[in-house]
């Protein structure tokens, strides 16, 4: 628990950091939708290249995000493995041709098409990960609520998000304290006990945590009510910044990427680029 991997805001002096939260949010949404939709290898290569360039510009070092990156790699590897185990012939089906390279055992042959499918699948994740990580690493959390509100999300929901960000460290500390106290009393959550016992034991930690959270909700909402939260239809944000020239350029880039992505992907009525036919 002490060393859980959490990516947080890294203050640096870079072009990406200078952009307003709104710009980054729009960019991030356009980017993740674009990579979600496309399966076209050519588009993915370009997107991957661009996301690496953006990562370079941001001055966030690989070292800063090594833990998170490690998790992402594990996730992608496991996902690929599962796909192969369940459907070793999926690529053949998609690309409508079959080039066997070699056979492992039984139905598990390795085909060029399957490998190509795995490559595309991996690239899809690889394109979005740098941008998503940068979004978290380069956006000041206090600006985040303002940017949500500026793209039309109700400010109440924006406020919920910033409350969540504000209270994550508190809840975490509390969880840690409670779990240590309960462990001192002999309640164990590690692999030594049976699963059912572990689940029951987890209630011993969760119950104080949930009850204190409910109290906290009471306190915070009373405080907000006293200060007249939610009285007006609109709300201003201290951390909101004006859009600069670079912001418009970044948004323009996002729009171009998005439109190009959609056009190329749906041009011939198929989401795939098929080099085998």
């Amino acid at each position, binding site marked *: 628990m002490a060393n859980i991997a959490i*990516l947080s805001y890294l203050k640096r002096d870079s072009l990406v950091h200078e952009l307003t939260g709104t710009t980054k949010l729009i960019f991030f949404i356009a980017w993740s939708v674009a990579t979600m939709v496309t399966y076209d290898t050519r588009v993915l290569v370009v997107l991957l290249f661009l996301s690496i360039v953006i990562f370079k510009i941001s001055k966030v070092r690989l070292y800063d995000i090594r833990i998170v990156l490690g998790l992402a790699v594990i996730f992608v590897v496991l996902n690929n493995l599962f796909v192969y185990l369940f459907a070793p012939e999926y690529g053949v089906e998609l690309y409508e041709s079959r080039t066997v390279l070699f056979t492992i055992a039984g139905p598990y042959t390795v085909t060029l098409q399957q490998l190509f499918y795995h490559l595309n699948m991996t690239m899809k994740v690889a394109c979005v990960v740098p941008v998503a990580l940068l979004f978290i690493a380069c956006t000041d959390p206090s600006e985040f609520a303002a940017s949500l509100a500026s793209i039309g999300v109700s400010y109440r929901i924006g406020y919920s998000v910033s409350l969540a960000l504000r209270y994550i460290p508190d809840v975490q500390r509390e969880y840690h304290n409670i779990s240590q106290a309960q462990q001192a009393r002999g309640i164990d959550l590690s692999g030594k006990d049976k699963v059912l016992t572990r689940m029951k034991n987890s209630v011993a930690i969760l119950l104080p945590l949930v009850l204190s959270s409910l109290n906290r909700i009471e306190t915070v909402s009373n405080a*907000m009510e006293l200060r007249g939260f939610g009285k007006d239809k609109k709300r201003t944000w201290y951390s909101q910044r004006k859009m600069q020239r670079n912001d418009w350029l970044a948004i323009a880039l996002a729009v171009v990427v998005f439109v190009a992505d959609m056009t190329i992907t749906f041009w011939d009525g198929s989401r795939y680029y098929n080099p085998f036919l």
Partner: protein
Amino acid sequence: MKKLSVKSVVAIGIGAALFFVLGKVSIPTPVPNTVISLQYAVEAVFATLFGPIVGMLIGFIGHTLLDATSYGPWWSWIIASAFVGLVIGVVTMKMEIGEGLDTKKIVRFNVAQVIAHLLAWGLVAPCLDILIYKEPLEKLFAQGMMAGISNIITTGIVGTLLLVAYAKTVVRRGSLNKED
């Protein structure tokens, strides 16, 4: 849309923080690559106490933060998490936990969570996965069912225990009976 009350706004925020923290601590199980997801038990309890909109947004915000700080958002599962909160909240609507908890309410809570998890992990998540990521059907449904069953068991046991314990504290506060 009806305006969210101040209390709902705060409940979403702190609920999402809880969801996030519990998502980060994983309790190992004997089956590799599956962990007990305690966050769904808490999401279910909050959805029961505060209603469907709060439940939905806790799932959505909590899961998005969780994914975005680990390996980039996997939207189909995020939407499924939101769906779980929504369904549990709708089915358990107007169930006043503060006025005591009887077997009928416990059954209703569990029916709600079973329906929610089955639909979310057996239908919503795999369908969106096909739509968005085009992964093979067999893998998605196997994965979805595994997650669904493990979540149903976790929410069923942990969520119910939490709810029972919570109801006890509420009743005790208002009662003059010295014996428990």
